[in-house]
């Protein structure tokens, strides 16, 4: 089947207009730095080390971007980077945090998962929040137990 150029032209125009509206916005969000001064946590919920990640010995940082409403509630959270086994728990946890509203309605949270030191078993987990936006979730290496 032949498609006439005249038919495609309006579609092309619409696509160009749409990208002009969407792309600059996305690009703007991508390029804009969120400074620490904009992030003011009002309340947080502790996150235990996710079991599957701990048992698979997965550690490292997860960076989460959250979108806030006018009252500082999280209305959307997404991962910028991190390990696959850690991301879902962080996204879920971030959605429970509360912030003091900021002008742009955005914030970044950094979760730093560590496995260090020795202990008995695999369930130990310690959560520490370092304002404005960094949390460490520490577990330990399991010592042999027959």
């Amino acid at each position, binding site marked *: 089947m032949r498609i006439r150029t005249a038919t495609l032209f309006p579609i092309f125009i619409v696509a160009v207009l749409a990208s002009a509206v969407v792309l600059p916005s996305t690009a703007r969000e991508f390029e804009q730095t969120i400074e620490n001064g904009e992030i003011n946590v009002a309340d947080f919920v502790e996150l235990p080390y996710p079991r599957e990640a701990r048992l698979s010995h997965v550690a490292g940082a997860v960076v989460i971007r959250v979108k806030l409403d006018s009252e500082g509630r999280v209305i959307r959270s997404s991962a910028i980077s991190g390990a696959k086994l850690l991301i879902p728990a962080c996204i879920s946890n971030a959605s429970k945090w509360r912030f003091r509203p900021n002008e742009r309605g955005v914030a970044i949270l950094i979760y730093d998962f560590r496995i260090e030191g020795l202990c008995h078993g*695999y369930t130990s987990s310690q959560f520490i929040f370092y304002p404005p936006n960094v949390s460490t979730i520490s577990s330990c290496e399991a010592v*042999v*137990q027959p």
Partner: protein
Amino acid sequence: MGLSRAGISGFSNNPLQLSVSPWYGPDGNGGHTSIQNVSVPDFAQSGANQTAIAGVLQKILNALPNNPVCSNWLQAGGDSQGTGAQQIQVLLGANNFGHGTIHQGNGIAYEIGAFSGNFNPDKTKIPGVPLSAVFTVNDAGSFFNQYAGGDQTKPFEVGRRAYSGNTLRAQAAILIHETAHQITVAGFQPDFGNRKAGRANDVAVDKNCRQLIEGLQ
């Protein structure tokens, strides 16, 4: 009768000989025994033995809902969260376990049925065992064998009830004991090199999970 523990099995005729440490020796109660590093040079996470371990884990998982005493006991203690059933589900889903010939010091550790963990007490990683392996079953131990080293004068006995080696009861007792270590059940003690703690742990497994263990088919 020899030592009989779930994680550590014994031989009925010849009591287990614990090595004597140059820095401290046995206290007669199983404490202060020397602790030599373990290693698993032929560690594997596949094959018939892996399938057998997974099969026993699955049977325990299936039986837990019908055994509330065991299920309620097999919970993470202290501030930790989680249940034995959740632990077993993740282990099965991610294949976070393995098997191989467990060595201790210079010889095969027949008395160790299985162990949980990845580090020796001297803070070095256990040779052969990957960090993603939560527990390791001994190919030469009581999980897969009736006798130590094939010697019929050394039958394995597992747990408080002295289950014979290479039986479903012995296998279940071993894996429940290890699961309790992994999730740090309240009162479950570190027992590497400590017979007294190991016996106390086996009493706890028996008291809470005997019905489950002996009901498995």
